[in-house]
Protein backbone atom coordinates (compact mmCIF):
# COMPACT_ATOMS: atom_id res chain seq x y z
CA UNK A 1 0.00 0.00 0.00
CA UNK A 2 1.12 3.56 -0.55
CA UNK A 3 -0.42 6.97 0.14
CA UNK A 4 0.55 10.62 0.04
CA UNK A 5 1.13 12.51 3.29
CA UNK A 6 1.00 16.25 3.90
CA UNK A 7 4.08 18.31 3.04
CA UNK A 8 4.12 22.04 2.24
CA UNK A 9 6.45 22.12 -0.72
CA UNK A 10 7.60 18.66 -1.69
CA UNK A 11 5.89 15.32 -2.02
CA UNK A 12 5.80 12.99 0.95
CA UNK A 13 4.58 9.41 0.76
CA UNK A 14 4.18 6.40 3.02
CA UNK A 15 4.69 2.88 1.68
CA UNK A 16 4.05 -0.44 3.36
CA UNK A 17 4.77 -3.96 2.17
CA UNK A 18 5.03 -7.45 3.55
CA UNK A 19 8.70 -7.72 2.57
CA UNK A 20 11.45 -5.90 0.69
CA UNK A 21 10.20 -7.00 -2.73
CA UNK A 22 6.65 -5.89 -1.96
CA UNK A 23 7.92 -2.51 -0.74
CA UNK A 24 9.87 -2.09 -4.00
CA UNK A 25 6.66 -2.90 -5.87
CA UNK A 26 4.85 -0.14 -3.98
CA UNK A 27 7.66 2.28 -4.85
CA UNK A 28 7.28 1.36 -8.54
CA UNK A 29 3.51 1.93 -8.37
CA UNK A 30 3.99 5.25 -6.54
CA UNK A 31 6.55 6.54 -9.06
CA UNK A 32 4.35 5.55 -11.99
CA UNK A 33 1.36 7.36 -10.48
CA UNK A 34 3.39 10.45 -9.68
CA UNK A 35 4.88 10.59 -13.16
CA UNK A 36 1.95 9.74 -15.44
CA UNK A 37 -1.11 9.35 -13.22
CA UNK A 38 -3.31 6.44 -14.23
CA UNK A 39 -1.90 6.11 -17.77
CA UNK A 40 -1.08 2.51 -18.65
CA UNK A 41 2.64 1.70 -18.69
CA UNK A 42 3.60 -1.41 -20.66
CA UNK A 43 6.39 -3.76 -19.48
CA UNK A 44 8.28 -3.50 -22.78
CA UNK A 45 11.82 -3.10 -21.42
CA UNK A 46 13.60 -4.69 -18.48
CA UNK A 47 16.28 -3.03 -16.38
CA UNK A 48 18.09 -4.18 -13.26
CA UNK A 49 19.10 -2.32 -10.14
CA UNK A 50 21.92 -3.98 -8.23
CA UNK A 51 21.06 -3.57 -4.56
CA UNK A 52 23.96 -1.73 -2.94
CA UNK A 53 24.34 -0.27 0.52
CA UNK A 54 25.30 -1.21 4.06
CA UNK A 55 21.76 -2.06 5.18
CA UNK A 56 18.26 -2.72 3.91
CA UNK A 57 17.18 0.90 4.43
CA UNK A 58 20.00 2.26 2.29
CA UNK A 59 19.45 -0.40 -0.37
CA UNK A 60 15.79 0.57 -0.59
CA UNK A 61 16.66 4.29 -0.70
CA UNK A 62 19.09 3.75 -3.57
CA UNK A 63 16.59 1.58 -5.45
CA UNK A 64 13.96 4.35 -5.41
CA UNK A 65 16.59 6.93 -6.27
CA UNK A 66 17.50 4.91 -9.35
CA UNK A 67 13.86 4.93 -10.49
CA UNK A 68 13.89 8.74 -10.20
CA UNK A 69 17.11 8.91 -12.21
CA UNK A 70 15.78 6.72 -15.01
CA UNK A 71 12.62 8.78 -15.31
CA UNK A 72 14.53 12.03 -15.68
CA UNK A 73 17.55 10.82 -17.64
CA UNK A 74 15.69 8.95 -20.37
CA UNK A 75 11.99 9.02 -19.55
CA UNK A 76 11.81 5.42 -18.32
CA UNK A 77 8.47 4.74 -16.63
CA UNK A 78 8.33 1.73 -14.30
CA UNK A 79 5.42 -0.73 -14.57
CA UNK A 80 6.35 -3.61 -12.28
CA UNK A 81 9.33 -5.14 -10.53
CA UNK A 82 10.59 -8.41 -9.11
CA UNK A 83 13.14 -8.98 -6.39
CA UNK A 84 16.04 -11.20 -7.39
CA UNK A 85 19.18 -12.26 -5.61
CA UNK A 86 21.03 -9.00 -4.87
CA UNK A 87 19.02 -7.02 -7.40
CA UNK A 88 15.59 -5.84 -8.44
CA UNK A 89 14.49 -6.18 -12.06
CA UNK A 90 12.15 -3.45 -13.24
CA UNK A 91 9.93 -3.69 -16.30
CA UNK A 92 8.52 -0.63 -17.97
CA UNK A 93 8.79 1.58 -21.02
CA UNK A 94 9.98 4.98 -22.16
CA UNK A 95 7.65 7.96 -21.93
CA UNK A 96 5.54 8.20 -25.08
CA UNK A 97 3.65 11.49 -25.43
CA UNK A 98 1.04 9.80 -27.63
CA UNK A 99 0.00 7.41 -24.83
CA UNK A 100 1.19 9.00 -21.60
CA UNK A 101 -0.04 12.21 -20.02
CA UNK A 102 2.58 13.95 -17.94
CA UNK A 103 1.62 14.44 -14.34
CA UNK A 104 4.79 15.85 -12.84
CA UNK A 105 8.56 15.66 -12.92
CA UNK A 106 10.53 14.49 -9.88
CA UNK A 107 13.89 16.12 -9.23
CA UNK A 108 15.15 13.86 -6.49
CA UNK A 109 14.49 11.59 -3.55
CA UNK A 110 15.69 13.46 -0.47
CA UNK A 111 17.16 12.00 2.72
CA UNK A 112 15.12 14.42 4.82
CA UNK A 113 12.75 12.47 7.12
CA UNK A 114 13.55 9.20 5.35
CA UNK A 115 11.98 6.40 7.36
CA UNK A 116 12.48 2.67 6.85
CA UNK A 117 11.29 0.41 9.61
CA UNK A 118 10.05 -3.06 10.41
CA UNK A 119 6.45 -3.27 11.58
CA UNK A 120 4.14 -6.08 12.63
CA UNK A 121 2.89 -6.22 9.03
CA UNK A 122 6.33 -6.22 7.40
CA UNK A 123 8.07 -3.03 6.28
CA UNK A 124 7.13 0.64 6.28
CA UNK A 125 8.90 3.53 4.55
CA UNK A 126 8.40 7.29 4.34
CA UNK A 127 9.86 9.17 1.42
CA UNK A 128 10.08 12.87 0.53
CA UNK A 129 10.61 13.77 -3.12
CA UNK A 130 11.78 17.16 -4.32
CA UNK A 131 9.61 18.35 -7.20
Amino acid at each position, binding site marked *: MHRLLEHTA*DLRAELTGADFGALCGEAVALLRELLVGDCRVEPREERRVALAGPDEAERFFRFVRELVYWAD*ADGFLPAACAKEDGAVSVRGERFDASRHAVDRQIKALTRHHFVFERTAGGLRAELIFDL
Partner: protein
Amino acid sequence: MRTEGLIFASAEQVRELENDEALRQVANVATLPGIVGPSIAMPDIHWGYGFPIGGVAAFDPERGVISPGGVGYDINCGVRLLVTPLAIADATPRMPELVDELFRTVPSGIGSSRADVELDDAALDGVLLGGAARAVEMGFGRAEDLAAIEAGGELAGAAPHQVSRRARDRGRHQLGTLGSGNHFVEVGSVDTSYDDVSARRLGLTEGTVTVLVHTGSRGLGHQVCDDHLDVMLAAAKRYGIALLDPQLCCAPLGSPEANAYWGAMNAAANFAFANRQLITYFVRRAFARLFGETVAAEIHVVYDVAHNIAKLEEHEFEGRRRRLCVHRKGATRALPPAHPELAPRFRELGQPVLVPGDMGRHSFVLLGLDRAASETFSSCCHGAGRRLSRHAAKRLARPRHLVRELAAQGILVRAASRATVDEEMPEAYKDVAGVVDVVEGAGLARKLVRLRPAAVVKG
Protein backbone atom coordinates in the same frame (compact mmCIF):
# COMPACT_ATOMS: atom_id res chain seq x y z
CA MET B 1 22.48 25.67 18.60
CA ARG B 2 25.68 27.58 17.97
CA THR B 3 23.84 30.78 17.14
CA GLU B 4 20.37 32.26 17.10
CA GLY B 5 17.72 32.15 14.39
CA LEU B 6 16.55 35.35 12.72
CA ILE B 7 13.26 35.16 10.85
CA PHE B 8 11.81 38.08 8.91
CA ALA B 9 8.03 37.80 9.03
CA SER B 10 4.85 39.73 9.76
CA ALA B 11 2.75 38.86 12.81
CA GLU B 12 0.37 36.94 10.55
CA GLN B 13 3.22 35.04 8.90
CA VAL B 14 4.61 34.15 12.34
CA ARG B 15 1.21 32.72 13.31
CA GLU B 16 1.15 30.63 10.12
CA LEU B 17 4.64 29.34 10.92
CA GLU B 18 3.74 28.01 14.36
CA ASN B 19 4.20 24.23 14.44
CA ASP B 20 5.77 24.37 10.95
CA GLU B 21 8.75 22.12 10.34
CA ALA B 22 10.55 25.11 8.76
CA LEU B 23 11.20 26.63 12.21
CA ARG B 24 12.95 23.46 13.31
CA GLN B 25 15.03 23.65 10.13
CA VAL B 26 16.17 27.20 10.98
CA ALA B 27 17.30 25.82 14.34
CA ASN B 28 19.00 22.81 12.72
CA VAL B 29 21.06 25.08 10.45
CA ALA B 30 22.14 27.02 13.55
CA THR B 31 23.93 23.88 14.79
CA LEU B 32 26.31 23.62 11.84
CA PRO B 33 30.01 24.22 12.54
CA GLY B 34 31.51 27.61 11.76
CA ILE B 35 28.23 29.44 11.20
CA VAL B 36 28.76 33.20 11.34
CA GLY B 37 25.87 35.39 12.46
CA PRO B 38 22.36 34.03 12.77
CA SER B 39 20.60 31.27 10.85
CA ILE B 40 18.35 33.54 8.78
CA ALA B 41 14.99 32.96 7.12
CA MET B 42 13.10 35.24 4.76
CA PRO B 43 9.32 35.80 4.93
CA ASP B 44 8.73 33.29 2.12
CA ILE B 45 10.11 30.58 4.44
CA HIS B 46 8.56 27.13 4.20
CA TRP B 47 9.42 23.52 4.87
CA GLY B 48 12.31 22.33 2.73
CA TYR B 49 14.80 19.51 3.14
CA GLY B 50 17.93 20.27 5.19
CA PHE B 51 17.77 24.07 5.10
CA PRO B 52 14.32 25.65 5.06
CA ILE B 53 13.29 27.24 1.78
CA GLY B 54 14.02 30.94 2.28
CA GLY B 55 17.09 30.13 4.37
CA VAL B 56 20.39 32.04 4.48
CA ALA B 57 23.51 31.07 6.42
CA ALA B 58 27.11 32.28 6.25
CA PHE B 59 30.12 30.18 7.21
CA ASP B 60 33.69 30.99 8.14
CA PRO B 61 36.10 29.66 5.48
CA GLU B 62 38.50 28.33 8.16
CA ARG B 63 36.06 26.73 10.61
CA GLY B 64 32.87 26.45 8.61
CA VAL B 65 31.29 23.99 6.22
CA ILE B 66 29.59 23.78 2.86
CA SER B 67 26.40 21.76 2.57
CA PRO B 68 24.62 20.67 -0.63
CA GLY B 69 21.44 20.77 1.47
CA GLY B 70 22.01 24.52 1.84
CA VAL B 71 21.92 24.95 -1.92
CA GLY B 72 19.30 22.40 -2.91
CA TYR B 73 18.91 19.97 -5.78
CA ASP B 74 18.19 22.68 -8.30
CA ILE B 75 21.57 24.40 -8.18
CA ASN B 76 21.26 28.02 -9.37
CA CYS B 77 17.57 27.82 -9.71
CA GLY B 78 16.92 31.46 -10.46
CA VAL B 79 14.91 34.09 -12.23
CA ARG B 80 15.58 36.16 -15.33
CA LEU B 81 13.53 39.20 -16.29
CA LEU B 82 13.30 40.40 -19.89
CA VAL B 83 11.76 43.65 -21.07
CA THR B 84 10.23 44.04 -24.51
CA PRO B 85 9.43 47.18 -26.56
CA LEU B 86 5.75 46.18 -26.67
CA ALA B 87 2.91 47.79 -24.79
CA ILE B 88 0.51 45.34 -23.15
CA ALA B 89 -2.46 46.87 -25.00
CA ASP B 90 -0.81 46.05 -28.34
CA ALA B 91 0.32 42.55 -27.30
CA THR B 92 -2.93 41.38 -25.67
CA PRO B 93 -4.82 40.54 -28.90
CA ARG B 94 -2.01 38.15 -29.87
CA MET B 95 -1.47 36.70 -26.39
CA PRO B 96 -3.15 33.34 -27.17
CA GLU B 97 -0.82 32.82 -30.14
CA LEU B 98 2.17 33.97 -28.11
CA VAL B 99 1.58 31.57 -25.22
CA ASP B 100 1.08 28.68 -27.66
CA GLU B 101 4.28 29.63 -29.47
CA LEU B 102 6.24 29.82 -26.20
CA PHE B 103 4.81 26.47 -25.10
CA ARG B 104 6.02 24.92 -28.36
CA THR B 105 9.39 26.69 -28.32
CA VAL B 106 10.45 26.04 -24.72
CA PRO B 107 10.07 22.33 -23.87
CA SER B 108 8.65 21.59 -20.44
CA GLY B 109 7.50 18.67 -18.31
CA ILE B 110 8.74 15.12 -17.87
CA GLY B 111 11.58 14.04 -20.13
CA SER B 112 11.67 17.44 -21.81
CA SER B 113 14.71 17.78 -24.03
CA ARG B 114 15.85 19.61 -27.14
CA ALA B 115 16.81 17.81 -30.30
CA ASP B 116 18.14 21.10 -31.73
CA VAL B 117 20.85 21.59 -29.08
CA GLU B 118 23.38 18.76 -29.17
CA LEU B 119 26.16 18.84 -26.60
CA ASP B 120 29.05 16.39 -26.81
CA ASP B 121 31.37 16.19 -23.79
CA ALA B 122 33.65 18.98 -25.02
CA ALA B 123 30.71 21.32 -25.69
CA LEU B 124 29.19 20.48 -22.32
CA ASP B 125 32.52 21.23 -20.60
CA GLY B 126 32.46 24.61 -22.33
CA VAL B 127 29.02 25.34 -20.90
CA LEU B 128 30.00 24.11 -17.42
CA LEU B 129 32.99 26.46 -17.45
CA GLY B 130 31.59 29.41 -19.38
CA GLY B 131 27.90 29.49 -18.44
CA ALA B 132 25.84 32.14 -20.22
CA ALA B 133 28.96 33.56 -21.90
CA ARG B 134 29.55 30.22 -23.61
CA ALA B 135 25.89 30.10 -24.66
CA VAL B 136 26.31 33.53 -26.29
CA GLU B 137 29.45 32.29 -28.08
CA MET B 138 27.34 29.38 -29.37
CA GLY B 139 24.97 31.92 -30.92
CA PHE B 140 22.27 31.97 -28.24
CA GLY B 141 21.94 35.64 -27.44
CA ARG B 142 24.06 38.76 -27.38
CA ALA B 143 27.15 39.87 -25.50
CA GLU B 144 25.13 42.75 -23.97
CA ASP B 145 22.95 40.16 -22.17
CA LEU B 146 25.87 39.14 -19.98
CA ALA B 147 26.22 42.51 -18.27
CA ALA B 148 22.72 42.05 -16.85
CA ILE B 149 23.40 38.65 -15.26
CA GLU B 150 24.73 38.02 -11.76
CA ALA B 151 28.51 37.50 -12.07
CA GLY B 152 28.18 37.91 -15.84
CA GLY B 153 26.51 34.50 -15.97
CA GLU B 154 29.81 32.73 -15.37
CA LEU B 155 30.89 31.67 -11.87
CA ALA B 156 34.58 31.08 -11.21
CA GLY B 157 35.64 27.84 -9.58
CA ALA B 158 33.74 25.50 -11.88
CA ALA B 159 35.40 22.10 -12.24
CA PRO B 160 33.70 20.11 -15.01
CA HIS B 161 35.68 16.98 -14.09
CA GLN B 162 33.75 16.90 -10.79
CA VAL B 163 30.46 16.51 -12.70
CA SER B 164 29.75 12.80 -12.99
CA ARG B 165 28.89 10.84 -16.11
CA ARG B 166 25.38 10.33 -14.73
CA ALA B 167 24.91 14.07 -14.22
CA ARG B 168 26.17 14.77 -17.74
CA ASP B 169 23.88 12.17 -19.26
CA ARG B 170 20.93 13.54 -17.31
CA GLY B 171 21.50 17.14 -18.38
CA ARG B 172 23.03 16.79 -21.84
CA HIS B 173 19.74 17.17 -23.73
CA GLN B 174 18.05 19.47 -21.23
CA LEU B 175 19.84 22.74 -21.98
CA GLY B 176 17.16 25.23 -23.10
CA THR B 177 14.31 23.42 -21.34
CA LEU B 178 12.08 24.58 -18.52
CA GLY B 179 11.44 21.52 -16.38
CA SER B 180 8.41 21.16 -14.19
CA GLY B 181 6.99 22.06 -10.77
CA ASN B 182 7.12 25.75 -10.01
CA HIS B 183 9.22 26.61 -13.08
CA PHE B 184 7.67 28.86 -15.70
CA VAL B 185 7.97 31.36 -18.50
CA GLU B 186 5.54 34.20 -17.78
CA VAL B 187 4.58 37.07 -20.06
CA GLY B 188 3.29 40.03 -18.11
CA SER B 189 3.47 43.77 -17.89
CA VAL B 190 4.50 46.50 -15.49
CA ASP B 191 1.27 47.50 -13.77
CA THR B 192 2.63 49.68 -10.96
CA SER B 193 5.83 51.66 -10.66
CA TYR B 194 7.02 52.76 -7.22
CA ASP B 195 9.94 54.84 -8.55
CA ASP B 196 9.44 56.00 -12.14
CA VAL B 197 12.92 57.42 -12.59
CA SER B 198 14.76 54.26 -11.51
CA ALA B 199 12.28 51.96 -13.26
CA ARG B 200 12.71 53.87 -16.53
CA ARG B 201 16.48 53.31 -16.35
CA LEU B 202 15.76 49.57 -16.51
CA GLY B 203 13.15 49.99 -19.26
CA LEU B 204 10.35 49.10 -16.85
CA THR B 205 7.77 51.76 -17.65
CA GLU B 206 4.12 51.13 -16.83
CA GLY B 207 2.33 49.05 -19.46
CA THR B 208 5.52 47.56 -20.90
CA VAL B 209 5.44 43.84 -21.69
CA THR B 210 7.90 41.76 -19.68
CA VAL B 211 8.93 38.10 -19.60
CA LEU B 212 9.97 36.25 -16.43
CA VAL B 213 11.90 32.98 -16.74
CA HIS B 214 12.16 30.74 -13.66
CA THR B 215 14.26 27.60 -14.00
CA GLY B 216 17.64 26.18 -13.02
CA SER B 217 20.23 23.54 -13.77
CA ARG B 218 17.74 20.79 -14.62
CA GLY B 219 18.72 17.15 -14.21
CA LEU B 220 22.42 17.93 -14.32
CA GLY B 221 22.21 20.02 -11.16
CA HIS B 222 19.89 17.56 -9.42
CA GLN B 223 22.39 14.76 -10.05
CA VAL B 224 25.37 16.85 -8.89
CA CYS B 225 23.54 17.37 -5.60
CA ASP B 226 22.66 13.67 -5.30
CA ASP B 227 26.21 12.54 -6.09
CA HIS B 228 27.80 14.88 -3.59
CA LEU B 229 25.26 14.22 -0.82
CA ASP B 230 26.56 10.68 -0.69
CA VAL B 231 30.12 11.97 -0.40
CA MET B 232 29.15 14.54 2.23
CA LEU B 233 27.32 11.99 4.37
CA ALA B 234 30.52 9.99 4.67
CA ALA B 235 32.56 13.17 5.11
CA ALA B 236 30.40 14.46 7.97
CA LYS B 237 30.98 11.19 9.79
CA ARG B 238 34.71 11.29 9.07
CA TYR B 239 35.08 14.88 10.34
CA GLY B 240 32.91 14.24 13.40
CA ILE B 241 30.11 16.62 12.40
CA ALA B 242 26.86 15.77 14.20
CA LEU B 243 23.83 16.07 11.92
CA LEU B 244 20.25 16.67 13.07
CA ASP B 245 19.07 15.94 9.54
CA PRO B 246 21.05 13.79 7.06
CA GLN B 247 20.14 16.29 4.35
CA LEU B 248 22.35 18.82 6.20
CA CYS B 249 25.40 16.67 5.54
CA CYS B 250 28.43 18.81 4.88
CA ALA B 251 32.21 18.98 4.86
CA PRO B 252 34.69 21.54 6.18
CA LEU B 253 35.43 24.27 3.66
CA GLY B 254 38.79 23.57 2.10
CA SER B 255 38.51 19.79 2.57
CA PRO B 256 38.79 17.55 -0.54
CA GLU B 257 35.07 16.75 -0.31
CA ALA B 258 34.12 20.43 -0.07
CA ASN B 259 36.42 21.34 -2.94
CA ALA B 260 34.91 18.61 -5.13
CA TYR B 261 31.37 19.85 -4.43
CA TRP B 262 32.43 23.47 -4.92
CA GLY B 263 33.76 22.69 -8.39
CA ALA B 264 30.71 20.67 -9.38
CA MET B 265 28.23 23.16 -7.88
CA ASN B 266 29.74 26.10 -9.77
CA ALA B 267 29.75 24.04 -12.97
CA ALA B 268 26.06 23.24 -12.48
CA ALA B 269 25.37 26.91 -11.70
CA ASN B 270 26.99 27.86 -15.00
CA PHE B 271 24.81 25.26 -16.74
CA ALA B 272 21.77 27.01 -15.21
CA PHE B 273 22.90 30.45 -16.40
CA ALA B 274 23.36 28.95 -19.88
CA ASN B 275 19.92 27.32 -19.64
CA ARG B 276 18.21 30.64 -18.97
CA GLN B 277 20.31 32.18 -21.76
CA LEU B 278 19.07 29.60 -24.27
CA ILE B 279 15.49 30.06 -23.11
CA THR B 280 15.94 33.81 -23.63
CA TYR B 281 17.07 33.08 -27.20
CA PHE B 282 14.02 30.91 -27.88
CA VAL B 283 11.69 33.48 -26.26
CA ARG B 284 13.12 36.10 -28.63
CA ARG B 285 12.52 33.74 -31.57
CA ALA B 286 8.90 33.28 -30.47
CA PHE B 287 8.39 37.06 -30.30
CA ALA B 288 10.14 37.44 -33.69
CA ARG B 289 7.69 35.00 -35.32
CA LEU B 290 4.68 36.90 -34.00
CA PHE B 291 5.78 40.50 -33.78
CA GLY B 292 8.75 40.66 -36.15
CA GLU B 293 12.53 40.79 -35.90
CA THR B 294 12.59 44.46 -34.90
CA VAL B 295 10.64 43.71 -31.74
CA ALA B 296 12.81 40.67 -30.93
CA ALA B 297 15.94 42.79 -31.36
CA GLU B 298 14.62 45.17 -28.71
CA ILE B 299 14.07 42.49 -26.04
CA HIS B 300 16.65 43.09 -23.34
CA VAL B 301 17.68 41.26 -20.19
CA VAL B 302 16.85 43.38 -17.13
CA TYR B 303 18.53 41.03 -14.66
CA ASP B 304 19.19 37.36 -13.91
CA VAL B 305 19.86 36.17 -10.37
CA ALA B 306 20.31 32.83 -8.60
CA HIS B 307 18.31 31.92 -5.52
CA ASN B 308 19.81 28.46 -4.81
CA ILE B 309 23.56 28.85 -4.46
CA ALA B 310 26.57 29.04 -2.12
CA LYS B 311 29.08 31.80 -2.83
CA LEU B 312 32.29 33.11 -1.33
CA GLU B 313 31.62 36.77 -0.66
CA GLU B 314 33.12 39.70 1.24
CA HIS B 315 30.91 40.99 4.04
CA GLU B 316 31.27 43.47 6.86
CA PHE B 317 30.51 41.52 10.04
CA GLU B 318 30.98 42.71 13.62
CA GLY B 319 33.09 45.62 12.47
CA ARG B 320 35.46 43.83 10.14
CA ARG B 321 35.57 42.81 6.55
CA ARG B 322 35.37 39.01 6.23
CA ARG B 323 35.28 36.49 3.43
CA LEU B 324 32.36 34.15 4.06
CA CYS B 325 30.67 31.25 2.32
CA VAL B 326 27.04 32.38 2.09
CA HIS B 327 24.42 29.70 1.42
CA ARG B 328 21.15 30.93 -0.05
CA LYS B 329 18.46 28.32 -0.46
CA GLY B 330 15.39 30.00 -1.82
CA ALA B 331 16.85 33.43 -1.11
CA THR B 332 18.13 36.11 -3.47
CA ARG B 333 21.29 38.16 -3.25
CA ALA B 334 20.41 41.85 -2.76
CA LEU B 335 23.47 44.07 -3.15
CA PRO B 336 23.08 47.75 -2.18
CA PRO B 337 23.83 50.73 -4.44
CA ALA B 338 27.53 51.35 -5.13
CA HIS B 339 28.52 47.74 -4.45
CA PRO B 340 31.66 46.95 -6.49
CA GLU B 341 30.25 43.63 -7.76
CA LEU B 342 27.40 45.39 -9.53
CA ALA B 343 27.65 46.13 -13.24
CA PRO B 344 27.91 49.90 -13.90
CA ARG B 345 24.26 50.17 -14.96
CA PHE B 346 23.12 49.04 -11.48
CA ARG B 347 25.65 50.95 -9.34
CA GLU B 348 23.38 53.87 -8.55
CA LEU B 349 20.26 51.75 -8.24
CA GLY B 350 21.27 48.70 -6.24
CA GLN B 351 20.87 45.14 -7.45
CA PRO B 352 17.51 44.18 -8.94
CA VAL B 353 15.87 41.48 -6.79
CA LEU B 354 13.37 39.43 -8.80
CA VAL B 355 10.48 38.09 -6.72
CA PRO B 356 7.91 36.08 -8.65
CA GLY B 357 4.51 35.51 -7.13
CA ASP B 358 1.95 32.88 -8.02
CA MET B 359 0.47 32.68 -11.51
CA GLY B 360 -2.75 34.46 -10.57
CA ARG B 361 -1.38 37.46 -8.76
CA HIS B 362 1.67 39.70 -9.10
CA SER B 363 5.44 39.55 -9.16
CA PHE B 364 7.80 42.26 -7.96
CA VAL B 365 11.12 43.78 -8.86
CA LEU B 366 12.91 45.18 -5.82
CA LEU B 367 16.25 46.95 -5.40
CA GLY B 368 18.79 45.91 -2.74
CA LEU B 369 19.50 48.28 0.17
CA ASP B 370 22.32 48.80 2.68
CA ARG B 371 20.35 47.23 5.52
CA ALA B 372 20.52 43.85 3.77
CA ALA B 373 24.30 44.14 3.82
CA SER B 374 24.36 44.60 7.58
CA GLU B 375 21.53 42.23 8.55
CA THR B 376 21.28 39.38 6.06
CA PHE B 377 24.61 39.11 4.26
CA SER B 378 22.94 41.03 1.40
CA SER B 379 20.08 38.59 1.01
CA CYS B 380 16.38 38.96 0.39
CA CYS B 381 13.29 36.87 -0.33
CA HIS B 382 12.91 34.88 -3.56
CA GLY B 383 9.18 34.38 -4.06
CA ALA B 384 5.82 34.02 -2.41
CA GLY B 385 6.50 30.80 -0.52
CA ARG B 386 4.09 27.89 -0.43
CA ARG B 387 1.35 27.70 2.21
CA LEU B 388 -0.58 24.63 1.00
CA SER B 389 0.82 21.18 0.34
CA ARG B 390 0.61 19.94 -3.25
CA HIS B 391 -1.76 17.29 -2.00
CA ALA B 392 -4.08 19.88 -0.43
CA ALA B 393 -3.87 22.16 -3.46
CA LYS B 394 -4.82 19.32 -5.76
CA ARG B 395 -7.81 18.47 -3.57
CA LEU B 396 -8.92 22.10 -3.63
CA ALA B 397 -8.43 22.40 -7.39
CA ARG B 398 -10.03 19.09 -8.40
CA PRO B 399 -13.65 20.33 -8.73
CA ARG B 400 -12.52 23.54 -10.43
CA HIS B 401 -11.14 24.39 -13.85
CA LEU B 402 -8.20 26.63 -12.98
CA VAL B 403 -7.10 27.29 -16.56
CA ARG B 404 -10.58 28.61 -17.34
CA GLU B 405 -10.74 30.61 -14.09
CA LEU B 406 -7.41 32.27 -14.80
CA ALA B 407 -8.39 32.95 -18.41
CA ALA B 408 -11.46 34.78 -17.10
CA GLN B 409 -9.03 37.02 -15.17
CA GLY B 410 -7.05 37.65 -18.36
CA ILE B 411 -4.26 35.17 -17.57
CA LEU B 412 -3.66 32.44 -20.15
CA VAL B 413 -2.00 29.24 -18.94
CA ARG B 414 -0.43 26.46 -21.01
CA ALA B 415 1.00 23.52 -19.08
CA ALA B 416 2.44 20.11 -19.79
CA SER B 417 0.16 18.65 -17.14
CA ARG B 418 -3.03 19.44 -15.27
CA ALA B 419 -1.39 18.20 -12.06
CA THR B 420 1.17 21.01 -12.21
CA VAL B 421 -1.51 23.67 -12.73
CA ASP B 422 -3.55 22.31 -9.83
CA GLU B 423 -0.57 21.99 -7.50
CA GLU B 424 0.63 25.49 -8.45
CA MET B 425 -2.78 27.13 -7.99
CA PRO B 426 -2.61 30.71 -6.65
CA GLU B 427 -4.12 29.72 -3.30
CA ALA B 428 -1.22 27.30 -2.74
CA TYR B 429 1.05 30.31 -2.21
CA LYS B 430 1.26 33.16 0.26
CA ASP B 431 0.41 36.55 -1.18
CA VAL B 432 3.76 37.77 -2.49
CA ALA B 433 2.70 41.36 -1.72
CA GLY B 434 2.81 40.50 1.99
CA VAL B 435 6.25 38.96 1.58
CA VAL B 436 7.77 41.99 -0.16
CA ASP B 437 6.12 44.33 2.35
CA VAL B 438 8.08 42.56 5.09
CA VAL B 439 11.46 42.83 3.35
CA GLU B 440 10.76 46.46 2.45
CA GLY B 441 9.64 47.19 6.01
CA ALA B 442 12.84 45.59 7.30
CA GLY B 443 14.87 47.77 4.94
CA LEU B 444 16.39 44.85 3.03
CA ALA B 445 15.12 46.06 -0.35
CA ARG B 446 12.69 48.57 -1.80
CA LYS B 447 9.91 48.05 -4.31
CA LEU B 448 10.65 49.20 -7.84
CA VAL B 449 7.79 47.81 -9.94
CA ARG B 450 4.96 45.32 -9.76
CA LEU B 451 4.28 42.99 -12.67
CA ARG B 452 0.93 41.52 -13.64
CA PRO B 453 0.84 38.13 -15.40
CA ALA B 454 -0.88 37.81 -18.79
CA ALA B 455 0.27 34.39 -20.03
CA VAL B 456 2.10 31.58 -18.25
CA VAL B 457 3.86 28.49 -19.60
CA LYS B 458 4.24 25.83 -16.89
CA GLY B 459 5.99 22.50 -16.88
